[in-house]
């Protein structure tokens, strides 16, 4: 036992075992461990409340008066939309104040950059952490959705990466924005003028056809619409592969652009 531990310690002492990105991810996990209880409750409670209120409450009203929405019960329609929208919200909130804190308030990034870690490691470690949070959120959401009986296809498994990608596209852009800000006032603007309108108007709660025609191109240009569309098709099992490919391409392109921008802005902010 002791001998084993010794050998293991010697192996470890060789150094350079863990990629830098993962060392940063480990920092985030470490700090998360201190608050995971409350955070876990929230990430479980939110889908339950939303699905109960929107899907079951509002849904019974809609089903009673309107019948189905796009051929399915309202609960089935709204649930995948909420999955994508909550991924957006989690990713956004983890990319606003925490990034500003690590730059300005706690200065964690500067502490990291005084070690062998580089800006790119810090940034990718942050993204890795956001992805970890998204995995947790999406899996919880899909689990609750299954409990509500809204999962209708094995393709629904792919809604997990779809929701994660949706979140990542927001995280990359918003992280870049956060790194360019001197204070946190811009975050309220992002929420009011960006996230809330997207949440309400990206076909999350009703089909795009309910919006006036001139708004369609606008909705179509926003990332959440594509995330919702992708998640909905996969969860319901009505997959139009051409539009799914288009949604996917949009989200990948946006994430890549956001990551590129974030890297530039992180470098500009942190290496002076």
């Amino acid at each position, binding site marked *: 036992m002791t001998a084993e531990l010794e050998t293991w*310690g010697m192996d470890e*002492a060789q*150094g350079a075992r863990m990629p830098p990105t993962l060392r940063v991810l480990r920092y985030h996990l470490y700090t998360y461990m201190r608050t995971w209880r409350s955070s876990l409750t929230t990430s479980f409670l939110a889908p339950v409340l939303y699905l109960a209120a929107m899907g079951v409450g509002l849904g019974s009203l809609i089903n009673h008066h309107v019948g189905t929405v796009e051929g399915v019960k309202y609960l089935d329609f709204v649930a995948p939309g909420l999955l994508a929208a909550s991924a957006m919200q989690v990713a956004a909130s983890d990319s606003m104040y925490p990034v500003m804190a690590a730059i300005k308030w706690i200065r964690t990034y500067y502490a990291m950059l*005084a070690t062998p870690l580089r800006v790119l490691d810090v940034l990718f470690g942050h993204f890795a952490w956001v992805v970890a949070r998204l995995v947790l959120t999406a899996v919880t959401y899909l689990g609750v959705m299954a409990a509500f009986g809204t999962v209708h296809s094995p393709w629904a498994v792919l809604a997990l990466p779809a929701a994660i990608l949706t979140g990542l596209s927001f995280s990359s852009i918003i992280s870049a924005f956060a790194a360019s800000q001197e204070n946190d006032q811009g975050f309220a603007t992002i929420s009011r003028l960006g996230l809330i309108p997207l949440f309400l108007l990206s076909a999350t709660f009703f089909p795009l056809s309910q919006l006036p025609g001139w708004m369609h191109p606008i909705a179509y240009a926003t990332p959440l619409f594509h995330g919702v569309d992708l998640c909905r098709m996969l969860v319901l099992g009505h997959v139009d592969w051409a539009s799914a490919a288009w949604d996917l391409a949009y989200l990948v392109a946006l994430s890549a652009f956001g990551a590129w921008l974030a890297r530039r802005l992180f470098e500009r902010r942190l290496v*002076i």
Partner: protein
Amino acid sequence: MPSHPTSSLGAPAQHLAPGADLVVSARGLVKRFEELVAVDHVDFDIVRGESFGFLGPNGAGKTSTMRMIACMSPKSGGELQVLGMDPQTNGPEIRARIGLVPQEDSLDLQLTVLDNLMIYGRYFDLPRKVIKERAGNLLEFAQLSERAHDTVEPLSGGMKRRLTIARALISEPDLLILDEPTTGLDPQARHLLWDRLYRLKSQGVTLVITTHYMDEAEQLCDRLVVMDKGSIAASGSPASLIERYSTREVLELRFPPDAGPAAAAIDGVAERVEFLPDRVLLYTANGEQTLADVMARGITPVNWLVRRSSLEDVFLSLTGRTLID
């Protein structure tokens, strides 16, 4: 079988290029921020094992220089070598062997004292076991053993500073960089910190310190440079600087506020005389003798003080008395 030395804090420098015992070497080093030239063609060498100081008023370019040495900030011009490597191409390798104590603490306030060390050690990819061993020694060194499991937030400024220093030592660096280590601390905390830094120095750790406290520089630095407006105004050991830029003693005289003419009659009695609003400073080899000379001229100050010349006199004569913001 111990694979890492845990008894000594900061292992002696190693892998230095043969013949070069220079830990840091700068030639014509420049740092520009758009229009502002923060560091303007400075030259200096820091030898292994010494304690080297950067002295200067606010905005003199000390922190910019420090950040370039720590490979956190790219130079705008000139030459810079740290631990025999080029910061531009070997940043991560150099930083692996440097400990940095930044001007502002960047501790994780929500985490415990021990967790802060554990996490920081992990950035260097040190094995958990090694960090744990070192953390125990370092907390003892920093007199924080009893607070190991407390969160950092409620700790005093001095404790946070000591923790930051302990954190910077977790990788057993060859070079420890301290940017204004005692600013904002009370006298007790400063003296404790000086004691700890002195121990590190005697263990052979190369220290680079910026400060605007002259007593700190006199206590800790073997050699130092005085920076002013981005340039090096003077360099040498504290004693040699005092010898070169000041006199052995200073006689301070106080007069009543309306005694202008009487004070003026002192002129010429010492090597250098400086008139301040509240007192007159006479730079001289022998303060008592000069005092007698002053009295002989029939001038009687309200009170007087003979003291040894200090680095502060050097500093003020080099950088002036005007307030710099």
